[in-house]
């Protein structure tokens, strides 16, 4: 109590200094701890976007849930998409705690998503027209997600770090689920192999974009400097992209697939992968909800939201009465 009284008497600069000392010493910040506004706002944006990306991320795969080609695949993809929704729920709760002092709730996050004030991840604006896309999402998109999320496992904000730990553990299963679909296609008929190559061609650019622009100059803004400063993440976007190449490019080649970038190679002298930059102007358009499937998927959620309005009303009436 005495320590707390002393703390409340500190000036904002002194509080900030203590806060930075704590995170630099590797201490975890908890929901009720003092934190600078910039830190809170950065976390809310990051975690709310992560949450709605999990929820929107269920939609491209959802297309393939009823269509999965065997009983085993049907069960597998149902479980996988359910996990993604579970991650969304877990993250919404983390975001809710951070938003509470601002008088905002989960409802606000969902409404911000539907009203396009809150963005979702670039990959989930892309079309998934074949079963191979469903496999590729599991294998490479979840593979990429494991890399960005592992990068934040030691985040200074304790509740997010703990949520990510659980999410990453499940994502490993998802990547295996995706890889198993991909292997069946790669070892399958000519049509199946073609279907797989086309899916890779379609997803390659989105996968490069997945990690975000290399610097703020590319697109005008980037949160990576702030998140590194606050020990939310450690590696830069480009480091993560390079890690992704190191892990997956050899595997892609080993399956007999062609990467749709003839410049792609590992430069031994520089110790890095050389690749063609994606169109970052297009990236900006996509995350402004002008991607190929942005509006269609948002509309799907809006329809469901409107359609179920009576259920929410009924439940809140029950709660009030109780």
């Amino acid at each position, binding site marked *: 109590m005495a320590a707390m009284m002393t703390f409340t008497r500190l000036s904002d600069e002194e509080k900030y200094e203590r806060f930075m000392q704590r995170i630099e010493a590797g201490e975890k910040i908890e929901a009720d701890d003092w934190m600078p506004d910039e830190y809170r706002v950065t976390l809310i944006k990051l975690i709310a976007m992560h949450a709605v990306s999990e929820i929107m991320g269920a939609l491209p795969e959802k297309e393939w849930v*009823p269509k999965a080609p065997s009983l085993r695949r049907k069960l597998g993809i149902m479980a996988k998409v359910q996990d993604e929704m579970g991650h969304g729920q877990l993250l919404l709760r983390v975001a809710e705690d951070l938003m509470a002092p601002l008088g905002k709730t989960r409802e606000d996050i969902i409404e911000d998503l539907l009203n396009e004030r809150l963005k979702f991840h670039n990959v989930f604006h892309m079309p998934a027209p074949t079963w191979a896309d469903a496999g590729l999402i599991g294998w490479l998109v979840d593979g990429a997600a494991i890399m960005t999320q592992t990068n934040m496992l030691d985040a200074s904000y304790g509740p997010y770090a703990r949520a990510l730990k659980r999410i990453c553990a499940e994502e490993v299963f998802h990547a295996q689920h995706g890889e198993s679909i991909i292997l069946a296609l790669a070892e399958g008929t000519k049509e199946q192999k073609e279907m797989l190559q086309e899916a890779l061609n379609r997803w390659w650019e989105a996968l490069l974009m997945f990690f975000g622009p290399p610097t703020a100059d590319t697109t005008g803004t980037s949160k990576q400097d702030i998140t590194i400063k606050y020990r939310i993440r450690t590696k830069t976007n480009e480091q993560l992209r390079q890690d992704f190449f190191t892990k997956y490019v050899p595997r892609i080649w080993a399956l007999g697939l062609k990467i749709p970038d003839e410049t792609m190679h590992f430069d031994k002298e520089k110790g890095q992968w050389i690749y063609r930059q994606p169109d970052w102007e297009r990236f900006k358009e996509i995350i402004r909800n002008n991607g190929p499937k942005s509006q269609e998927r948002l509309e799907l959620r809006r329809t469901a939201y409107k359609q179920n309005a009576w259920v929410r009303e009924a439940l809140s009436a029950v709660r009030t009465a109780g």
Partner: protein
Amino acid sequence: MERRDSAMSEKPIHFHPDGQEALVELLFQLADDDFLLAYRGSEWLGLAPHIEEDIAFSSISQDTMGHATMYYQLLEDLGCGSADELAHARPASARRNAVLLERANGPGHYLREPRYDWAFTVVRQYFYTQAKRVRLESLTKSSYAPLAEVAAKIQVELHYHLLHWHTWFVQLTNAPLEARTRMTKAIQDVAADFAGVLTLGAKGTEMVRWGLIDEEKVLTENTIAALAPAFAEVGLDWPMPFGMKHGNGRNGEHTPDLDEALATLSEVYRAVPHAIW
């Protein structure tokens, strides 16, 4: 007892040859019922009233798909074809599911303008789960041991499903105005086809004669007894008599909703013949 192994492929498991037809018919009813309802459940993914429900419903649909898989496996073991083929490749006329379970979740498509009806879904799931529980209880005493074993396994999961749908059923029906009106309408709608779930079809008498399952009359009475307390809880009149408004699925009578469902659920399966997925 005469054995007719030659007609079967790959060492199938046997029931009494004269009773096998009734057994196969029953297994198709059980498998197709769960398969179609799980499919309808999977269409709801991402569209449920809130995210917690999305997760819970998805888990129930997975269990239900798992139950269908076990029944199709029993059919495979009897030499009827592979489980995947039975689930994906049989035409509508060969399906034995109750019509209630194939009916669409509402207007629209799961990817475009899904104007799905949560009231209909809750009532259908609740009624069906009660009927399923009664049926499973009977099946645990089935003369076909592999079926009795599967039934015992499924029973364990059903307790939670029942609790889930009962909660929704009571909560929404007891809610004011619009919710109660919608639920009352949904109850009428489900009741109009519910006799199709309760019937054992043309081979029902044979099924009972071979000790595979209890009589339709007994199963129906037990299901009604199981549903009755919920109606008392919500203060509504019993929606009798149950009907088969859209046909008797046990006899292969189905609606265009089933054609659409089968086309979707087997789209990839049929895309490359004989492929391994």
